[in-house]
């Protein structure tokens, strides 16, 4: 009956519509057209929103990145490609984002694993502990780290006292401080999708593995871990893609020694009013983020990544 393509799930009657000379063929066709129209009109507001807020601006971004002095030019990309300072910024951005993602995975997985097994009330308390920092302004948290990691904070003087370091600025005004601050911000983005994934895990499978003679570690690595891959990837993508766009945390905790792409974009706009240069960097960020999404979708299947199938 419905021929609205992929927009409407196929129904069992579909093949009947194709039969010639069915007595109600005309009515069915009219019904089909009405369905299609209805679906399209229901999609219209969302489509218009996407067009106005995403497609046109991103198209505009691409366009601006190809314009210099009113003419088409690749000069903005050439600059990124040839200048060492731009390459350093891109390399720093990717490196820090990868490190932050890995740390979030290593710290976040056991946390989500534990949360998923806790009984309801305890799990709620645990989740609240993950969520509460998530609700506090990034700026406030970053300033808190300035104090905690600083030369007069509690951590570094202790390390100095026990003789582990003689550098009062071990944890601040460098990549280490930046990474610590970013992990703190990003951790919930790793834990929450993974938790949702683990929560739906059927623990009977572990019992089944045990009954087949698998020791706990082997059951974990061969049954549990593979089934949680989709959750891990969702977390990895969320954390990495957001990390490459970080601004406040590296600007404050990096002490001017850490320049990430978004900081360069800001200075391109605020100091030079150079939309072309800023847009080209924006496009590069977009490409990096998209390639990670595509890679993740390839590795685990798009449906699992977007959460449309389990």
């Amino acid at each position, binding site marked *: 009956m419905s021929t609205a393509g992929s927009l409407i799930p196929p129904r069992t009657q579909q093949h009947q519509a194709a039969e010639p000379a069915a007595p109600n063929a005309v009515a069915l066709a009219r019904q089909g057209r009405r369905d299609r129209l209805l679906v399209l009109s229901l999609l219209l507001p969302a489509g218009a929103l996407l067009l106005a807020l995403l497609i046109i601006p991103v198209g505009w971004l691409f366009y601006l990145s190809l314009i210099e002095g009113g003419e088409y030019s690749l000069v903005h990309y050439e600059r990124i490609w040839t200048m060492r300072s731009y390459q350093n910024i891109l390399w*720093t951005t990717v490196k820090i984002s990868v490190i932050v993602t890995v740390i979030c995975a290593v710290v976040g997985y056991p946390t989500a694993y534990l949360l998923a097994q806790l009984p309801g009330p305890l799990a709620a308390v645990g989740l609240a502990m993950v969520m509460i920092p998530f609700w506090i302004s990034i700026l406030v948290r970053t300033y808190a780290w300035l104090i905690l990691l600083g030369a007069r904070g509690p951590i570094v003087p202790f390390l100095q006292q026990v003789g582990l370091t003689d550098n009062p600025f071990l944890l601040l005004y460098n990549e280490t401080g930046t990474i610590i601050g970013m992990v703190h911000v990003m951790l919930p983005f790793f834990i929450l999708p993974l938790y949702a994934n683990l929560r739906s895990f059927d623990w009977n499978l572990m019992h089944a593995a045990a009954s087949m003679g698998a020791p706990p570690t082997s059951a974990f690595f061969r049954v549990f871990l593979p089934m949680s891959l989709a959750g891990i990837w969702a977390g990895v993508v969320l954390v990495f893609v957001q990390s490459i766009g970080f601004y406040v945390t590296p600007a404050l905790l990096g002490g*001017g020694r850490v*320049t990430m792409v978004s900081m*360069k974009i800001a*200075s391109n706009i605020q*100091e030079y009013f150079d939309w072309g240069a800023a847009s080209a960097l924006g496009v590069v960020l977009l490409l990096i983020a998209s390639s990670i999404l595509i890679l993740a979708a390839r590795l685990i299947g798009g449906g699992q990544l977007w959460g449309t199938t389990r």
Partner: protein
Amino acid sequence: MRPALLATTAALGLAASLPTTAGAETIRYMTAGGIYLDHITEAFLEPIGEKLGVTWSIETSDNDTLIRLEHAAGAPTFDIVEFGASQCARGAADGLYEELDFDIIDVSDFTPGSYSDHFVGSTIFSTVLGYNTENIANPPSNWAEFWDVENFPGTRSLRRTARHMLEGALMADGVPPEEVYPMDLDRAIDSLGRIRPHVTAWWGSGAEAQQLVRDGGIDLIWTFNARLDSAAADGAPITYTFNQGIMEFGCWAIVKGTRNKDLAMRILAEFAKPEYQAEMARLSGYGAANMAIFETGIIDAETAATLPTAPDNVNRQLLLDAAWWAENAPEAIERFDQFMTE
């Protein structure tokens, strides 16, 4: 009472929600935020708003991006802006601002270099050498000594911008203050390269600098004088010298295409008057472009001596050359940014 109330409400950013009062023009004004805005409001906006029957609609920003965007779109919404000198000069060169009428605005007592055809100076701040009085027994007293890490030990911080740092780097390398402009960028960057290994943190905003000297473990810093005053007022063992400080003035300009050009001109004439500028200096600790503030009787001798523009201080400092920056900012900033990421 009523206009004052209106001005205050406007200053709080609520102007849009107020009904338009007959005869009261609303002036859209862009300036820096925070405590600076509080002082500007008290010293200038409230009394002048009352005098001229003007209400204020205020946006805060430390850069002119929005003004440039509106200019490019041909739809200016602001009337008056206040930025740093080099921004005003660049903006003027790019045609963002109206030419000023100096028959109305009196700049006869202004510091030379603190006004041009398109802008007039507001406050004058200085990047000065501050040091921790508990940790530093023998403080450096100029840029060259700040660069001399062997004879003047201590943790160091500099600003993360080309402005002021390039000037300072040249003086550290032995360039006399009067020969700093036009700046030799290669020499300045080389000089910065020598101090870089010894700089613990490059601060971005005044708030960061204040935090660094208060509880960030920094002993020696070049930063804004009012921020050091503020840190000292918080109880931090901090003091500073104006020696080889680099002064930069804030500046007012009238946005090209405003419908309120004549009124804006009259407002700038008020802004330039010594009594308002003196009140601002008294409140904020910044100097003023109008040197006649010292004759108004508003500032006591003790406060006067702490201002960057006090006669004893002003001669020991360098005034940022807004015209040089207007012309060379893109290249100078790009070179500095590259230096910071290499």
